[in-house]
């Protein structure tokens, strides 16, 4: 690596958190130096040889004239020009506690007018009148802040200050901060002690409009190792901010972030690679729809009601090769693709949330208000778990992650439908060898979108990074769907009788089954190959998402009632393996394979792989993703309701499934 990201941790008389701050910078990957302000004043240009500047906590010059006053003056009078260049080039600047006070006193936060540096906000005496040291919870706000990117779960950090009460002159200015997404961190709750100092609107940290200057009262540098937490929890929340700064600097420099050494050396350290982050799906929209009001307690609690277990990434890796020379953005900060994807993901997940989604319990579990069940006479909960198997490898090969979530969700929905149940909520699990945030965000967004389309909440999820378990580039995606149905309205296959008719619903492709075989068959063919019978690139055909039958089935249930006697979702095991699962003893399903046209993808697989029919029908859906059993006298009605339905056979007395 030609350029090593360098951090400067400023020392000054009375600054006293400089050593642990430097340690945090080093843990995050920075080459870090502690430099006394008087040394910097002798050679101001030296500032520009660093990529990250931290003003640590303490009591600079004793804070007698108000916290941070003298250091702020010293910086702006003697280092103003260099600081301006540093900030305008987009280099990150972090002020912690006293450092935050300095940035505010200097007029660098919340806004910076370099021609007329003016203090517009204040960190004044705690409303308790006391210095206070305690651990508090913070929530991140949607902001342009580069330090809090990708952090969607509450953070725990210690505060220790006597003058930390954020005050801004007017309600308009506060609203402006919200409009410009400058409120990066909030104390998680109103009133003492959740908001330990009485800060206006619970503000704990603000960034500049560009997002590269952050000031916060809590001390992230005091929680960079699990042992520093009162319950010795890992991963260490404070380190995330420093890691984000590092990733961001790497991105500015166009270099790959080196692997950060993990904490300690013992087995428990998997956590340092595995980042469990809870997405905070805040009620920002509600907040924004009330112009002129900053979120008050009521909307605040609404906002925390969107917690879900969710992982996202810290480090944003630039995918295309980038020049290794310095290439600072000249103004502000680019929200590049990864960040955008994360935003999309947030919006998508949020869109799945109805009023039933309750406050999550931090990073541990999500809650769903089972209100709807109260209106049911005898609710039955139905659950199903599935994965998408090796279709993920195709997604990786195609570098397309926006549909895989549909495969997962629709697969589960179809499973649920076989009981006649409607989905309530979904939980997903994404496991990877190395987390690419952009990719992860896209995957989760697709899960969320699929959920939204079936009217189900994406309640929670988990992303695990396990480099030793998965080869680089691979991932596994699985999930659990929970739904409900009236006990009396469950589809009851026990009512299936000889004489009932089998109807099929067309599939969209392979759905999620048989990919191991299909990939072997197509191993020699590039995914761009366009076979004439397919009329589209092979990859497109293979990756086509699993079709969801929710609307069709619901329509049929409404129209047919108990005449819809059974549903078989054709997944692994094909017709024999799946239809048999709904047959009561003494009944036999006879399916005429000639009754529908097998789509060309399947015939192509059979041809290229020289696979016999029996194997094909055991492995693939052969063009029908769902098989229905309908009372004979209602078949016409069914065909009217869903013209796509194809009669494919009938129920007789006997045993098992016969293909003819």
């Amino acid at each position: 690596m030609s350029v090593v990201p360098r951090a400067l941790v400023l020392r000054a008389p009375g600054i006293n958190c400089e050593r642990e701050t430097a340690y945090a910078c080093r843990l995050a990957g920075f080459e870090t130096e502690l430099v006394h302000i008087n040394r910097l004043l002798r050679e101001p240009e030296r500032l520009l040889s660093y990529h990250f500047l931290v003003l640590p906590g303490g009591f600079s010059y004793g804070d007698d004239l108000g916290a941070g006053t003298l250091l702020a003056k010293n910086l702006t009078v003697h280092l103003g020009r260099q600081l301006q260049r540093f900030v305008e080039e987009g280099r990150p600047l972090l002020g912690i506690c006293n450092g935050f006070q300095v940035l505010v006193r200097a007029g660098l936060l919340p806004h910076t007018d370099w021609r007329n540096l003016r203090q517009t906000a204040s960190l004044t005496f705690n409303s308790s009148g006391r210095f206070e040291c305690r651990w508090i919870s913070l929530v991140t706000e949607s902001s342009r802040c580069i330090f809090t990117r990708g952090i969607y779960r509450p953070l725990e950090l210690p505060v220790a200050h006597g003058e930390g009460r954020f005050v801004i002159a007017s309600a308009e200015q506060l609203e402006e901060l919200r409009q410009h997404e400058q409120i990066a961190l909030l104390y998680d709750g109103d009133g003492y002690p959740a908001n330990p100092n009485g800060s206006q609107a619970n503000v704990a940290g603000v960034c500049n409009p560009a997002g590269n200057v952050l000031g916060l009262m809590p001390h992230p540098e005091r929680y960079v190792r699990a042992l520093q937490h009162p319950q010795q929890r890992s991963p260490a929340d404070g380190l995330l901010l420093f890691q984000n700064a590092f990733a961001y600097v790497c991105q500015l420099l166009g270099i790959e972030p080196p692997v950060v050494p993990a904490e300690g050396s013992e087995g428990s350290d998997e956590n340092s690679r595995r980042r469990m982050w809870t997405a905070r799906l805040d009620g920002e929209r509600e907040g924004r729809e009330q112009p002129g009001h900053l979120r008050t307690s009521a909307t605040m609690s609404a906002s925390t009601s969107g917690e879900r277990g969710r992982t996202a990434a810290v480090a944003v890796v630039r995918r295309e090769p980038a020049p290794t020379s310095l290439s600072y953005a000249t103004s502000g900060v680019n929200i590049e693709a990864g960040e955008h994807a994360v935003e999309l993901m947030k919006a998508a997940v949020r869109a799945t949330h109805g009023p039933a989604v309750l406050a999550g319990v931090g990073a541990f579990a999500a809650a769903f208000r089972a209100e709807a069940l109260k209106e049911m006479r005898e609710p039955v909960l139905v659950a199903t778990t599935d994965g998408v198997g090796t279709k993920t490898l195709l997604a990786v090969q195609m570098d397309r992650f926006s549909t895989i979530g549909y495969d997962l969700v629709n697969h589960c929905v179809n499973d649920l439908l076989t009981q006649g149940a409607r989905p309530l909520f979904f939980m997903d699990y994404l496991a990877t060898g190395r987390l690419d945030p952009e990719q992860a965000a896209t995957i989760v967004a697709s899960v969320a979108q699929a959920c939204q389309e079936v009217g189900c909440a994406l309640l929670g999820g988990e992303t695990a990074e396990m480099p030793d378990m998965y080869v680089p580039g691979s991932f596994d995606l699985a999930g659990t769907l929970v739904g409900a149905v009236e006990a009396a309205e469950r589809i009851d296959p026990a009512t299936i009788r000889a004489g009932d008719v089998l109807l099929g619903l067309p599939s969209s492709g392979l759905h999620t089954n048989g990919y191991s075989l299909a990939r072997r068959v197509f191993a020699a063919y590039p995914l761009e190959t366009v076979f004439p019978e397919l009329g589209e690139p092979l990859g497109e055909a293979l990756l086509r998402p699993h079709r969801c039958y929710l609307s069709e089935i619901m329509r049929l249930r409404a129209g047919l009632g108990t005449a819809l006697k059974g549903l078989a979702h054709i997944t692994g095991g094909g017709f024999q393996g799946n239809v048999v699962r709904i047959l009561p003893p003494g009944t036999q399903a006879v399916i005429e394979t000639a009754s529908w046209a097998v789509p060309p993808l399947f015939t192509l697989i059979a041809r290229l792989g020289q696979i016999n029919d029996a194997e094909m029908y055991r492995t693939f859906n052969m063009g029908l993703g769902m098989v229905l059993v309908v009372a004979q006298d209602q078949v016409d009605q069914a065909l009217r309701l869903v013209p796509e339905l194809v009669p494919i056979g009938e129920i007789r007395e006997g045993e098992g499934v016969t293909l003819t």
Partner: protein
Amino acid sequence: MGRSTVTDYHIEVRATSPQYDIPAQQLARELSFLSRARLPALAALGESLPSLFLRTAQLYSLSGTCSPEEITRLARELLIDPVTQTFSLLPSAGRSSSGATGHIIDVFFLPGVTDTLAESVLLAASLLGIAGLERVATGRRYFLDERLSRQDVRAIAEALLYNPVIQFYRLLPAEGERAAGSSGRSAPRLSLAGPAPSPSSPPHVARLALSEMNVEELSNLSRQRMLALTVEEMQAIQEYFRRQGRAPTDVELETLAQTWSEHCSHKTFKATVVYRELTPAGETAIEETIPGLLRSFIMQATSELARPWVVSAFSDNAGLVQFTDGYDLAFKVETHNHPSAIEPFGGANTGVGGVIRDVLGVSARPIACTDVLCFGPPDTPVEELPPGVLAPRRVASGVVNGVRDYGNKMGIPTVNGAVLYHREYLCNPLVFCGCLGLLPHGSHPRAVEPGDLVVVLGGRTGRDGIHGATFSSGEMSSETQAVAGSAVQIGAPITEKKVTDVVLQARERRLYHAITDCGAGGFSSAIGEMGAQTGVRVDLARAPLKYQGLAPWEVWLSEAQERMVLAVPPACLDELLELCALEEVEATVLGEFTADGRLTVTWGEEVVADLEMVFLHEGRPQRTLEALWQRRPLTVGSATASPEALPDAADVLLTLLRHPTIGSKEGVVRRYDHEVQGATVRKPLVGRAGNGPGDGAVLQPLLEDLSAPRAGVVLTNGINPLYGKIDPYHMALNAVDEALRNLTALGGDIERAALLDNFCWGNPADPEQLGMLVRAVRGCYDAALGFGTPFISGKDSLNNEYRFGERRLPVIPTLLISALGVIEDASRTVDMALKAAGNLLYVVGLTRNELAASHYAEVVGPELLPTTALPQVELEQARTTMKALGEAIRRGLVQSCHDLSEGGLAVAAAEMALAGLLGVSLDLARQPATGLEELAEGFRPAVLLFSESPSRFLVEVAPSQREAFEAHMRAGGVTALAALGHVTASGRFVIKHGAETLIDLSIAELQAAWKGELP
């Protein structure tokens, strides 16, 4: 710029809204605590509306050749917070811009008292390029409701707003009154001209005609000059100067007084003690001569134990033990009682600053502070206080703020401590300040070489704290405040932080040969000790002063804070000075070390002191003191007491939890930053509730040292003055047991633990006081040997007595034991909060009928108790138990652990439950106990619940580890061990004795009582 006239400016800074006027809100709160008896007008107002008008402002008086525009710019840019404050330039000092009608009280520092705010204003002006500003004074202004009477206002000022030791105040006429100069009481007028001038050059050096004086004159001289020297000592000095054939200078006499003071030479602990022990009937049982308490007991234990990891004990400013292969730890605990009694903030503040310098004085980086505070009960009515004694609430709040201010500003976490409340601390509050330091092994240089320069770093010298050493070595009285005002100072922690930064870098670069701090006795003590083996010559005229006019002896003795003295090889001087310039630390060469074995002090060319080092350090006549101890029964209570008379156990438990000594200290602890430096693994407040009382602190200070990043330090303490009222010997054993018990409960290793002692006692010239001291010191010796834990440092603060009229009020003899333990892995420790329902709760250790001097006895009254003994330590058993249990914890066999101390099992179990927010179900019938057979059946539950038998623990063990835990403990020789019950998710705290339910309370009730909420 041409010459211009000096102009005075007066600036008043006020909050723009009452919500930002925090001092006014605090004042309102404090007013509510004041006795209405002295505030008739306020009392008459009652609860009437509108509520009392209170506002505050910051005052700046500036003087210099600056223009009004410059002053306005200074105020606008640097003296106010533009979002929450506004300012006005006042036409004169005695006016206010505010339209408020009412009373105005202005409070200023007395001349010479450290005013860091004023220094910041000067720095601010220079930053803005305002060159003409010459002097600044700052003060606080209080606007009080016009409905109050003048008398009320004075009473409020005296009770809350100012302390005559360091401040004065003036009452301003209400707005509109034109008469000038009615400036409060007989306080000095605010003067910008500095303190009253003393004769300056040539310096005034008095020569004292000692040789002519008789005994009475010698004694008078000692008293008049506050030398605190005995007649024998005065005579030794007289004799020395007779031999020299000249009269001593005041500098010499003061030097000797300081060097020979109790504070600096521990003359009581070094004195020969003639000890007599009487039987209860008054017959002599033992009579012996002890060659010195320190040598015969405390240091003797250390040398007998000969632990290889003790690097240095009793020979430096702080004790040193080995931490890892590469690092040592330094630990010191000091007292600052007298100053804290008369100026609580400044006293505690400089106490913390002083002990930090002790650690810096062994070249160590300060990494943690501890503080143990003893106050009178906070609700003591003012009317009951002896004259001259500050209200305990004021003492407590001042002391806590003083500790907070220094530790937080230095960036040193305050991680451990205790607060005790007892009536006997009303007149003699105690303040113990400790500091832990870390230094690379072998990095503390301590060999002065002739030719090395005497360099002083840090604060300037003023008339501060003069006679501190001798003051603290004498008793206090109701006049002390007036006489000894100069003995108290306010600290400047930022200055000390800068000095620390310089010293640690200088150590790295090996720029000095020796270092010591300026504590009690100032230069005299520091330089005199450093040069003891070589000789030294210093020129006091070079010392940087805060203001002119100090006599040489004042410069020499001044205890101005934040100063360190270094012995610097001439070749290193430039580098050191360059470092100091960068770090904004003043450094001055005062002289050099010589090879002549003499202390030579000059003022310019004039020699003002010339003493032989041998006489200075060894010429003090050995004292012989008399000590008397009359044996007394170790039991209280009566054989005829009836169990029926005992109050309900649940009520007693709640009362105990509400006891200020036992109850939550969250209000104090949260004001200290215990997280700074990021090394605090086990914190003072623990558990899911976030406020459980941790048994001590565990630090992991070597995060960045890859060779031993997990190495941990355990810090705990033990103190139980109530026991000392029966027998200080057992108080000492119990204090050591408690300190080590706490250490064990965290997972510490008593085989790697070292102890510090701090004695706070009455006048040792009183044979009974000394007799008690002998008992306590003997207890320390037995405990150290019994546990195998050496003492590495200590401190004695004697003469803690308050006199008014004929009454002598000695402090309750108090011994603080601080323990320091080293463990390999800080993560292998536990806290005291319950962790999970279903876990088992074990009692480890034997319970005996030991309720004498217990908190239970204090709460229910000893007259209701059966015959019951003082808690006594079975040393061998205690050591075995602690060794095995500490190891079990480090092996991961324990989920949580708490020691049983004040309030016994019941309080310990309740604290574990309220910290973990989990229920408990215990049956005392299984509790290992002994000696309860002769006790009436009905008394047993009270003993099992509340006995304070030492060396006991309550231990939470996961069911899956039950066998492993029991096997480990049995293998370690621990037999007194039983599972009494388990942790529950019920939210209830239930203790039974067989079929009988003794206590059934909710966790919420426990929390409420513990937080001091009334039922």
